[in-house]
């Protein structure tokens, strides 16, 4: 079959991946059988509970984070010295590895881990007893995984895409990349993007309609605010991406003329991509801002400084993020008027972001600070992110951007902003919410090792990269000459990357140690201030029995100060209806098979599999879990 044709001359890294995956797979199967974990796996495959789905989002996001992280180590090994030939990662293989690194980190690592944290923490923060549509939540998660699997299969078939995570046309058109590689990108991202849209919709309805009594919008923790704003951005941005991919799919499979031909315009793809892509970086950053706000408030033992301005600034950032997309295209030739406009809007984003930075600093000031691991990540974030922000303003100067564009300076900039906000934020939140996910608290000493190694490694990697870039090294280039002045800084960057890699080993050690010791903690291990620390650890399936009444921005801290328990009430809205089902898993995986059929243009198979997907829709419509609850005069179960 054509699917396996490329395997005949598979390079050694693909073979190594097959061998590694086979061994790891066998070990996992043995472990599952020995520990009798099959019922647990079956339970998680059928669950629609927000904590369990959130945990799976984080688990799989983390697995893809490791894979994309290993890719980055390959990139750094190849660039460690001039004219280097590391393993197979030259030319096209190098293109594949940076494409995979970028696409996986954005779509299959950062996004799912953030959505997972929103799934776990947001309902607990606002007093919701589950997401508004539990079934849809499961569909959203499995669609993400299905898309991620489709994307990952490409590598195992020696057909990994090599078009960059931005998938620019005309390179991604069938004229230049006619093989299945690029289609894996198109369908993998499309399917998981669909899941992201559903989850965003779900989160939004939950925040709007499922808050506890007394939980007004201006009493919501900032992570829940971030969830609401981010969901709104996802709904706009990911839709435009979906249409961009839809058009690219037509161009590739049916020879339409959107980005090719006498009238088709490759730059149109860039517009569509960046109308998605720029909001996307704020979709990644704003949830991290929310996490840091809550973590800093908790560990400074103070209310957040300037709460209202924090809310307004994330809304402003979200709005502005939709007006700046062409700053990725300043060298395309849109003309001085447009370049000036987009340079100006880009600079204005620094204002609301600056407001947030100062509010965090003022929250810390005069607080009773506890230097726990989540707090360290938050404190490490502030200066690192500011450095990324400063280079961002430099890049927005459109005249200067002609020098910076597509150089390692840009690579340094976006790693400084995304890594410092999103990845540090995710690590902070994993330590912070681990008790809510599992009932266990991660070891603090190992956590601090993880933090310091990661932070130092991060700066050692990316700070010299500014200089490499200013010296003229272009991004996405697999080698350089000894006399070009890139040697020393590239070498330092590689050392830093391995420091980050080693820090992840400490996280592993920490996970193993924590689960080995298995010391359960109570509902409130961090002396928290908000509602999520009133429910048990891990959070049970029936939370908020009885329902608390919220009377403050920090209701739990207020109750503790006044030396009383939280007020509760019987008067509250009904919880969403949930029933375990395997259908979300089946629907999503079938859609993944559809994507693979389309990738190889097996249209008859695609038609049949597509019909099965619609069959699942009908089946679900006829076996709705609401059937058992509606039409009871007394008002059904509550």
């Amino acid at each position, binding site marked *: 079959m054509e699917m396996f044709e490329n395997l005949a001359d598979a390079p050694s890294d693909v073979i190594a991946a097959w061998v590694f995956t086979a061994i790891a797979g066998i070990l996992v199967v043995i472990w599952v059988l020995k520990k009798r974990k099959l019922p647990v796996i079956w339970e998680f495959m059928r669950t629609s509970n927000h904590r369990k789905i959130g945990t799976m989002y984080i688990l799989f996001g983390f697995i893809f984070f490791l894979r994309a992280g290993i890719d980055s180590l390959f990139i750094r090994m190849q660039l460690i010295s001039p004219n280097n030939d590391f393993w197979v990662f030259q030319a096209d293989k190098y293109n594949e590895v940076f494409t995979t690194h970028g696409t996986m980190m954005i779509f299959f690592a950062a996004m799912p881990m953030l959505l997972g944290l929103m799934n776990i923490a947001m309902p607990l923060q606002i007093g919701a007893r589950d997401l*508004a*549509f539990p079934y*849809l939540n499961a569909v959203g998660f499995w669609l993400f995984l299905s898309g991620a699997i489709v994307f990952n299969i490409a590598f195992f078939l020696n057909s990994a895409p090599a078009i960059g995570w931005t998938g620019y046309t005309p390179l991604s058109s069938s004229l230049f990349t006619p093989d299945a590689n690029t289609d894996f990108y198109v369908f993998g991202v499309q399917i998981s993007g669909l899941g992201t*849209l559903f989850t965003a*919709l*779900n989160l*939004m*309805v939950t925040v*709007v*309609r*499922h808050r506890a009594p007394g939980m007004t919008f201006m009493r919501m923790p900032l992570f829940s605010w971030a969830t609401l704003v981010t969901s709104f951005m996802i*709904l*706009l941005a990911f*839709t*435009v991406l*979906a*249409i*961009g991919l*839809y*058009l690219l799919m*037509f161009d590739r499979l*049916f*020879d*339409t*003329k*959107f980005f090719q*031909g*006498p*009238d*088709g*315009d490759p730059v*149109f793809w860039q517009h*569509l991509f960046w109308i998605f892509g720029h909001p996307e970086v704020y979709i990644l950053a704003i949830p991290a801002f929310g996490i840091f706000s809550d973590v800093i408030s908790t560990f400074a033992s103070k209310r957040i400084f300037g709460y209202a301005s924090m809310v307004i600034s994330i809304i402003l950032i979200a709005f502005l993020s939709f007006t700046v997309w062409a700053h990725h295209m300043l060298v395309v030739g849109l003309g001085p008027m447009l370049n000036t406009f987009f340079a100006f809007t880009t600079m204005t984003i620094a204002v609301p972001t600056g407001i947030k930075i100062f509010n965090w600093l003022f929250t810390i000031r005069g607080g009773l600070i506890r230097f726990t691991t989540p707090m360290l990540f938050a404190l490490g974030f502030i200066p690192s992110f500011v450095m990324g922000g400063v280079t961002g303003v430099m890049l927005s100067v459109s005249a200067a951007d002609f020098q910076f564009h597509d150089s390692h300076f840009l690579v340094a900039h976006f790693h400084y902003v995304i890594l410092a906000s999103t990845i540090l934020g995710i690590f902070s939140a994993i330590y912070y919410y681990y008790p809510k996910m599992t009932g266990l608290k991660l070891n603090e000493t190992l956590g601090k090792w993880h933090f310091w190694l990661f932070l130092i490694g991060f700066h050692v990697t990316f700070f010299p990269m500014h200089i490499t870039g200013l010296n003229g090294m272009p991004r996405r280039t697999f080698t350089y000459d000894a006399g070009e002045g890139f040697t020393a800084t590239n070498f330092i960057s590689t050392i830093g990357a391995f420091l980050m890699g080693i820090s992840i080993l400490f996280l592993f050690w920490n996970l193993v140690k924590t689960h080995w010791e298995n010391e359960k903690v109570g509902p409130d291990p961090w002396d928290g201030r908000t509602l999520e620390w009133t429910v048990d650890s891990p959070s049970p399936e029936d939370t908020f029995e009885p329902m608390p009444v919220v009377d403050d921005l920090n209701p739990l801290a207020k109750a503790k100060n006044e030396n009383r328990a939280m007020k509760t009430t019987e008067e509250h*809205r*009904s919880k*969403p*209806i949930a029933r375990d089902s395997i259908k979300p898993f089946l629907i999503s995986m079938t859609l993944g098979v559809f994507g693979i059929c389309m990738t190889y243009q097996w249209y008859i198979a695609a038609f049949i599999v597509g019909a099965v997907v*619609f069959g699942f829709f*009908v089946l679900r*419509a*006829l076996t*709705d879990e*609401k*059937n058992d*609850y*509606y*039409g009871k*005069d007394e*008002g*059904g179960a*509550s």
Partner: protein
Amino acid sequence: MNTYEQELFRDKQLGFFIYLGVEAVMFLTLFTTYLIYTPSSEGPAPADIFSITTLVLSSVFLLSSSGTIMISEKGLETKNHKKIITWLFVTFVFALVFLGFEITEFVGFVNDGYGVSASSFLSSYFALVGLHAAHVLFGCGWMLVLFIQLSGIKIPFPLFIEKFKIFTYYWHFVDIVWVFIILLVYVKYLV
């Protein structure tokens, strides 16, 4: 519907309105694409191939189906199964007639050599109008499911009301998109 069902219905209503917002952004992007690429330097001009007769006839059926679904919806209040089914069936038939006109038009274009790859104009025409037609087709399938839910397996009536109302939002939305298609895809290049 009792208060319990009302609360859950309002959740779903909000969720579905947000979903329709997503659909609106989707169509907005496709309308923009169409306006950018029409007319193209190669292939036929829009006025050369569009037929006013087909447009008027198909529009009459699709737009009036928004009215017939409203009559059907009236039957929910009095739990009048006959009224619901009859007018839902009329809506279903109107949708099929519309699809018939659409498919005939598409096939005609393809037979004349004006398929998706003939020009950027035709590419964006098929991507937009074809996606709308797919929505109508999906709506037809949805109506079949509603028939089954009302008279086949018989789900609780309040749940049927919920599902029916959600469908009417969808159907009106598909009609509104069609109005924009009439104005921006056809009329703009016919007059």
